[in-house]
């Protein structure tokens, strides 16, 4: 089975989400060819994650319609029966277009390897799993960030230049505003997340949350009311109507654990809840719990992590 993996890059290197997609395809038993756009240092790291070859398009493209044309043409040229992309910002816009172009069935945000024609994904905001069958000749799959590790150790991949017909652009990027100046990992890809809710009582108290996050090299998040009241920016809102995350560690302080909140975080590998109320529903979903005042517990926890060295 041959797989074409769309490999987003940054500064010439494959992004983590891109490497996860390559590594995923390899785990599915595929011979993986990666497609990379724009500046690329050697193979961009694709070989190490399992790609045998990189098709390299010299110019970067902003319009996902054009990226989809490049990916589709590469998949056809390689005779790929599987196309993989990360289920991140760009992958969400590219993969559905590729599926249409290739007449392929698509399964977004998978959480398991493709076995035969069936693959697993989470549905109902993480409250259930679905085994989805793909009966089309070509299968398009996007991988949930941080759901699969990257297995490194492959040999450097051969890089071939590729010059697809991508047509006119229908979209251009005119600006970018970074959401945080501290350079922390964006929430959907974060490995550790420290989150707080209305229990923190006001935006002026977020220092203790940020301090723990910094110490843990974690990204900050919040509950919906906190972002609705403007205490924290919208992009930090996790839950059923916010961002769904899947970190290794999710620490929730002063969040009650409403079902809509849990829906966005219940796929975290380890959940810690800190709440003054021993009856808070979050304790039913958590792995570790502390009944206590976040204003006291968070700084102590930061200290304890620092002492760990």
């Amino acid at each position: 089975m041959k797989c074409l993996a769309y490999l987003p890059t940054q500064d010439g290197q494959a992004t983590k989400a891109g490497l996860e997609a390559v590594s995923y395809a390899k785990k599915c038993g595929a011979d993986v060819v990666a497609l990379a756009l724009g500046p690329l240092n050697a193979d961009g790291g694709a070989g190490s994650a399992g790609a045998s070859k990189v098709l390299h398009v010299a110019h970067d493209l902003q319009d996902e319609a054009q990226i989809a044309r490049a990916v589709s043409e590469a998949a056809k040229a390689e005779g790929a029966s599987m196309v993989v992309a990360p289920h991140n910002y760009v992958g969400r816009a590219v993969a559905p277009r590729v599926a249409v172009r290739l007449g392929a069935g698509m399964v977004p945000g998978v959480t398991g390897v493709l076995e035969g024609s069936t693959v697993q994904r989470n549905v109902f905001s993480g409250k259930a799993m679905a085994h989805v069958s793909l009966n089309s000749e070509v299968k398009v799959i996007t991988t949930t960030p941080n759901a699969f590790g990257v297995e490194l150790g492959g040999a450097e991949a051969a890089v071939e230049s590729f010059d697809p017909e991508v047509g006119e652009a229908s979209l251009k990027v005119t600006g970018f505003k970074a959401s945080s100046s501290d350079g922390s990992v964006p929430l959907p890809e974060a490995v550790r997340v420290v989150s707080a809710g209305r229990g923190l009582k006001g935006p002026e108290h977020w220092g203790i949350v940020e301090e723990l996050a910094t110490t843990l090299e974690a990204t900050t998040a919040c509950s919906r009311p906190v972002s609705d009241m403007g205490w924290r920016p919208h992009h930090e809102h996790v839950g059923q109507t916010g961002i769904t995350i899947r970190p290794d560690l999710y620490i929730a302080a002063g969040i009650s654990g409403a079902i809509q909140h849990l829906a966005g975080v219940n796929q975290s590998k380890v959940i810690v809840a800190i709440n003054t109320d021993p009856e808070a529903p979050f304790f039913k979903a958590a792995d570790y719990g502390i009944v206590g005042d976040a204003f006291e517990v968070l700084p102590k926890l930061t200290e304890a992590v620092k002492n760990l060295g």
Partner: protein
Amino acid sequence: MKILVCISKAPDTTSRIAFTEGDTQFDKNGVQFIVNPYDEWYALVRALELKEAQGGSVTTITVGEADCDPVIRKALAIGADDAVRIDANPTDALQVASLIADHAGDGGYDLVLCGKETIDHNGSVVGGMLAELMNASFVSLATSLEVEGGVVKATREAAGGLESVEASMPAVVSAAKGMAEQRIPNMRGIMAARTKPLNVVPAGDALQGATVAKFELPPAKGECKMISADQPEELVRLLREEAKIL
């Protein structure tokens, strides 16, 4: 400006999730259905705001069976002018997108809005497919949307921040949080919705990509281990030695 808004029904966020028929169907028994929040709060409301500012019309479109009609009426109560329901059981994103594209193709729509995902299948796929099928531009995960001089100007979620983009029309835009504020329908809206057109059209041939073979509930969560509030170092130790994540 002619705007089409894709509306889907979704189980209320507090619904008990269970399955029937050998775990192949979602158990609708006792489940309350709502308009998918992203469709209602952001896509529909922004469409109405654009119409109020620039004139035009807002039509909703739904692929679904008759049990969708109450949520479609809610969308009409919030302010859509008319609604279309393509009479089919939606089972796959490619099927839904192809049915909508076939219908919208001759409709002369300038803008098609959809929510960024539904809260049941969480796929985030229909909008992109629709754009490809309709040969339209696509702005995914948009947090703001303006239309000026025949060009879509939007901001959208991107890695580490927000991107400003410009896209040609016709455009498909998937709506994320921030695009608009939820509107509660008023009595007049609810009354008016009863007589607004809800056109049910038969489904033509649809593409089909993927089908759910089986649903499964996740394994029950183990007990929560409680740690005393004066022993945060014990938590840190457990995270390192037991959970092995520090």
